[in-house]
């Protein structure tokens, strides 16, 4: 299953809810303000580190770039563009939007 987070950790409890129901074989994609969840040296960033080390966390590059945080993300996070976004949806379906 593909989990998509659109809100920052400060906007809602969506990341927290997502991680509570996340299953081992799932993947996570951060888009829009959700990209802020992957900021390094933050609580939400460290919550995502385990998953990122297993290559399970993806971030939409254009949205991270737009928010000026491309060089401040946790390690091991996978950068993808919109074409990669489409591939993720096709391959990891079903999708859960938080």
């Amino acid at each position, binding site marked *: 299953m593909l989990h998509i987070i659109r809100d920052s950790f400060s906007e809602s409890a969506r990341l927290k809810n997502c991680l509570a129901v996340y299953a081992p074989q799932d993947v996570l994609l951060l888009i*829009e303000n959700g990209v802020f969840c992957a900021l390094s040296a933050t609580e939400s960033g460290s919550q995502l580190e385990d998953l990122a080390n297993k290559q399970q966390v993806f971030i939409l590059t254009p*949205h991270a770039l737009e928010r000026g945080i491309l060089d401040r993300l946790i390690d091991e996070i996978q950068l993808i563009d*919109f*074409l990669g*976004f*489409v*591939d993720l949806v*096709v*391959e990891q379906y079903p999708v859960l939007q938080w």
Partner: protein
Amino acid sequence: MSEGSVEFAILITASPLQSGGETAFQFIQSVLKKGHKIRQIFFYQDGVYHGSRLIHTENPILITRWQMLAKEYGLPLVLCSASAARRGIMGQNQANYFEKDTDNLAENFCIASLSQWFEAVSLAERVMVFGDVL
């Protein structure tokens, strides 16, 4: 690992002024670039504003690019009839029915009920939603 072409149905509740609206458009463009198909794009709640002919923004391309995409790929762009009426977006038929003195549906868009969306849902292989529903 290569995947064959799959068919999408897309629900958009985000307006043209929300980030979800922009994300939806770029996602759809990429779906088509990758050679997949789109059965239907259904605009619901604030998403119906994408189909208003009278919206004016600083970026004129924003409104016409749906039409460009629709023309190039033959995309069905469908507005939810109830959501559209609530927001004052009507085609000629709706305007006549509700006895309004004008219509404002953008070219290449049409208006239909939620049953149209669910028909697409039951036939598509991938369903994506942009914006909140509930």
